[in-house]
């Protein structure tokens, strides 16, 4: 572990960690849109009762259910690989938190249906406070899920002796000082992701308010920086060192550079008041650097928390899983289905029928 991630690790461990990080990054992008998007909607509804939503709020309202589907679907892959990488810790944390952990399922279902309810005509006919209350449900359910994941993650890296003690208390709530700041780093970091995807959506539609989006993104960056400072102040030396140790240091630098690049990109958009490809690409490159860098740092912190002995004891388990066949069949179907997804997008773009009288050109809303 004296070399940058994933080099220096045994091949099976490096391989599964890499696949885990790549799939987690995809999940994080969707998740960020949903987390910040539901927050955005909640604020918009609280301010207007949903009567005079901005164009951005309308886009978010239209797309968040799909993005939540995407987040859930994209979340399946990292959920699969985390079970190979850290089986005992992950399962034990699930079991210790028991009903509290399982509650994320009904809570997410409620939040999901609330998102569809926001798009319904029924809600438009209700009083403002009803619409505002419904708009709060998605952010509450997503925030609860995020909190539970962080709680689960932190418990999973505690030592087995602590698990035994925790089990005997019958508690289903675990907390430690770093939990909230850590959660806030992710939550505030989701705002620039939302701003960027939203900017691309507006770019595609040919509308949007560049300055407003830039302000949203930069406020997210500043909040993330403040949360990171709070996180730094409450974590132990082992966690702090994990960021600058050889395993994660290049990624920490990349994540920091990404923040600067994002800030530059958004500044450029703000001052030019334009959403064009060149400016959006700069922010996109910055965001990708930050998300990938922070995801690797997150793993480095986990590995540091486990300690070398416990982490190395997992290597034979990874090697055993690595010996199972099926990888090439996965690659073949991954390529096939990626191609088919591309074909679906092509169909939607290029196989439209000519408009007829009385056609509603808008998309179907649920």
């Amino acid at each position, binding site marked *: 572990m004296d070399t940058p991630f994933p080099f220096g690790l045994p091949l099976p461990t490096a391989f599964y960690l890499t696949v885990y990080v790549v799939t987690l990054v995809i999940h994080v992008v969707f998740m960020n849109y949903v987390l910040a998007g539901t927050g955005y909607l909640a604020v918009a509804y609280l301010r207007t009762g949903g009567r005079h939503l901005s164009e951005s709020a309308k886009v978010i309202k239209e797309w968040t259910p*799909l993005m939540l*589907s*995407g987040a*859930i*679907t994209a*979340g*399946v*892959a990292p*959920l*699969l*690989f985390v*079970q*190979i990488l850290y*089986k*005992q810790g992950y*399962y*034990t944390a*699930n*079991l*210790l938190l*028991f009903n509290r952990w*399982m509650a994320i*399922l009904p809570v*997410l*279902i409620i939040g*999901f*249906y609330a998102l*569809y309810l926001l798009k319904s005509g029924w809600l438009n006919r209700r009083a403002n406070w009803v619409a505002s209350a419904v708009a709060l449900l998605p952010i509450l359910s997503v925030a609860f899920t995020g909190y539970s994941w962080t709680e689960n993650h932190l418990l999973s890296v505690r030592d*087995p*002796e602590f*698990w*035994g003690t925790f*089990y*005997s208390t*019958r508690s289903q709530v675990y907390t430690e000082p770093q939990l909230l700041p850590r959660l806030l780093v992710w939550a505030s970091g989701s705002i620039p992701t939302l701003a960027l995807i939203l900017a691309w959506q507006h770019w595609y539609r040919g509308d949007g308010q560049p300055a407003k989006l830039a302000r949203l993104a930069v406020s997210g960056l500043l909040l993330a920086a403040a949360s990171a400072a709070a996180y730094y102040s409450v974590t132990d030396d082992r966690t702090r060192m994990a960021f600058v140790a050889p395993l994660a240091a290049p990624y920490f630098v990349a994540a920091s550079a990404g923040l600067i690049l994002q800030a530059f990109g958004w500044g450029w958009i703000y001052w030019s008041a334009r959403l064009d490809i060149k400016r959006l690409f700069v922010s996109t490159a910055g965001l990708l650097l930050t998300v990938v860098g922070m995801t690797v740092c997150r793993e480095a912190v986990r590995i540091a928390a486990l300690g070398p002995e416990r982490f190395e004891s997992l290597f034979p388990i990874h090697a*055993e*899983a690595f010996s*199972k*066949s*099926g990888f090439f*069949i*996965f690659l073949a*179907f*991954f390529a*096939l*289905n*990626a191609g*088919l*997804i591309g*074909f*679906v*997008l092509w*169909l*939607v773009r290029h*196989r*439209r*029928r000519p408009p007829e009288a009385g056609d509603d*050109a808008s998309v*179907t809303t*649920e």
Partner: protein
Amino acid sequence: MEAVLYPVNDFGPLMKGLAIGGLGIFHVFTAHFAIGGGMLLCYFQWLAMTGRSQPARVFMDGYFRYLVLISFVTGALTGVGMWFTSIQVSPVTIGLMIDEFHWLWAVEWTFFCLEVVAGYAAFKYGHLLTDRARLTLLALYSFAAWMSLFWINGILSFQLTPGAWLESRSIWDAFFNPTFLPSLLYRTIAALVVASLVAMVLINMAPAFNREQREELVRRAAWLMAPMALMPALGVWFVAAMPPDSREWIMGGSIAMTLMMNIAVGASAVVGVYALVGLLRNKLYVNGATATVLCLLAFAATAGGEFVREGVRKPYTMRELLYSNSIRPDQVAALRERGLSEVDPFPLRNEDELPKYGEKPHPLLRTGGLVFREQCSVCHTLGGVNSLPGLTKGWDSDMKRQNFAKLQKLKPFMPPFAGTPNELESLVQYVEWIDQGRPETWPEPADSRVHAERLVRIRHWLDEAGTQPALVRSGPTAKGGR
């Protein structure tokens, strides 16, 4: 291989199997709706674009909305929930399954992605596209949904019939196991039936149609139930491919399994006869109330079928690899010598309630509590469904000792006891303590001579029973991989 012990949660009066079964049934039903619904939409799109059915196009939009709201939300989340619930019930089982099949699960995930993208694209933009493009999107959605069934079906059916994998350890022998094909075909037909019945409920709910249009749509939707004629043959094929002992459970060997099997068969038969004779042959109309009752019967059939699928694996969760209580067959002999309770890192939660022996909790009761948790609690409760004190009521202490020691001989769907004679004696004492209302005092451990004699008798019974399960092996033995 050393056993990995996980914390065990108390589900109170509920059997853990009921938790996973309840969620599983609900998930399977919604998943079947998603798969069959895609096929139904393809069929209706074809009817609409070829001018064969005028109301089909209008109906599709409403149907699609329900499909999205039910399958894409509840179906997707209960699917993830199945993983979480499996971890709660048996982390060792799901861990082994993940180790063996993670790449096949990853393949299934690629189809989830295609399913979501194609499904949403067809739903949101379908009305803006050419008919051919919309049909293509729906076909891709259906293909992806069915392929997700294809992959998960192979993984789940492996648990009952690992087949040639036991010798070869080839993932393809595991996947294309003896019950793979009958199970896949049966589920495909079940998916068509669920989609068709839901369509009939919705046709009757939609205010946009007159009676004539409803009749036409019902008639069209009923055609998707025509393959039900094949269900009896597929059912017989599946049963024939099951291991002989599992077959015995549903043929009267286990009253619960037989009852559930009869519910599944009976409910399927009622729906099938109604569909084939009433709807297709006599072209009867079905109103909303009848369609709803048929839907509930289909749900009952799904529930019965899933209960049986989970239950007939007993005493295993993965046949010949892992017992229901997460102990491997090859660990039993060693555990008879060493036991598990000494190495369990998780304390007994109700230790404070135990009578004291000196300053400490009564040692036999404490060990008995741990043994119950480790070996019994996955299927039995202490005072609810399938309670162990209830099942052993009326047995005297020696009967308990002998029956626990020869568990697999007493009831062939039980695994062999996997502990030391002292652990077995402790379990007997613990069950009696519970049965007697958890008294505050409990006799001190018998003097060393009496206790030692008991342990000798228990050892003798354990040796007589052996460490092997009682079931009749059907296929290749598992020696190769042990």
